């Protein structure tokens, strides 16, 4: 074993980090190497005499703990004082994000809602419509067919009427009962004016 290796292992041995095998070879080297024995004595002496001069009285540690406690308390108080503004900011950010998502969903719903004028199918331009109208004018049969198609298209695009709204007031028997004789006479008079026919005398 070389002296440089022996001194490296000597350092490990002083720290209790040298396995038994190398330890035996180190001891064998030290037996026959005077310089390394001297080095071992020196570093062993340094190890033994190394002392950290702490020497603080108990009072110093009490003071240390009190000061630390005060700092910990102020750190905790600081945390409380600092957190809310960030929390408020975070809440506003979430609210703004939620409002944007809600607006997007509402817009999407309005565009996609069935029966709205926006979602109907429209003829694209006059180049298609004009020849059709000309053909309809030329032939009554074609005109009739176009008319049916247009009406069917309008029917398809028109939202289904509300069932309640479809019931005319006149269909309700209570409607007539609630009318006075004067109201009835006025209605009859209007009908005679519109149709030219008189009502029952």
């Amino acid at each position, binding site marked *: 074993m070389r002296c440089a290796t022996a001194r490296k292992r000597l350092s490990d041995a002083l720290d209790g980090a040298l396995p038994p095998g190398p330890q035996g070879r180190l001891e064998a080297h030290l037996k026959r190497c005077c310089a390394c024995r001297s080095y071992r004595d020196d570093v062993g002496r*340094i190890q033994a005499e190394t*002392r950290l001069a702490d020497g*603080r009285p108990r009072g110093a540690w009490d003071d240390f703990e009190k000061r630390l406690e005060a700092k910990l308390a102020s750190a905790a108080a600081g945390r409380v004082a600092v957190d809310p503004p960030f929390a408020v900011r975070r809440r506003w950010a979430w609210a703004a994000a939620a409002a944007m998502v809600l607006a997007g969903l509402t817009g999407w719903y309005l565009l996609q809602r069935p029966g709205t004028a926006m979602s109907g199918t429209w003829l694209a331009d006059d180049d298609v419509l004009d020849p059709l109208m000309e053909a309809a004018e030329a032939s009554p049969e074609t005109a009739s067919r176009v008319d049916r198609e247009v009406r069917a298209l309008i029917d398809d695009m028109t939202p289904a009427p509300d069932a309640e709204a479809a019931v005319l007031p006149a269909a309700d028997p209570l409607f007539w009962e609630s009318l006075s004789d004067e109201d009835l006479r006025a209605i009859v008079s209007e009908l005679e004016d519109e149709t030219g026919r008189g009502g029952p005398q």
Partner: protein
Amino acid sequence: MDDHPEARLVDEARTGGREAFAELVRLHERRVFGVALRMAGNPADADDLAQEVFLTAWRSIGSFRSGSSFYTWLYRITVNTSLTFLKRRNREKNRAPFDENLAVGGPATGLPPGPEGRSALNELASRIGEAVASLPAPFRATFALVVDQGLSHADAARALGCSENTVSWRMHKARKLLQARLKPWLEEVRS
């Protein structure tokens, strides 16, 4: 009786238990102060460093992984805080670089009276402190953990964030530097 009182204290401190943390401080304040003193070189700065170490530990104890060694974690904070502190003060730059051939005065010609052997030993002990203080910071940190605190190479490696081989090499180098620097006083003690 709880087999792992420190682990229980750490768990309580992690959930905000200030009293448990105070108990941990009482358990470890001397060790933390010892490493800080070795690194800073004077008790006033070591005291400030130790306060900073425990404040950092309190703020980040939530990130401490239970099952790890608390004191190793604390030593790591201590070493990192000390190294940052030394950089900030730029003390290392102003400190004279270690030179093992540099004569540091040698034994005083007029030693104080008293038993010769004891005086020489006392002188050696004080010179050891100066010599260790003049080691480069990473060597001093390793020396403080292994020699002053008695950590194994494995624990010191965890605290320093390096390999065991690095710890072993640093210790060997530090001893070699100290032996060269203290040679005059060592010879006097031997004689």
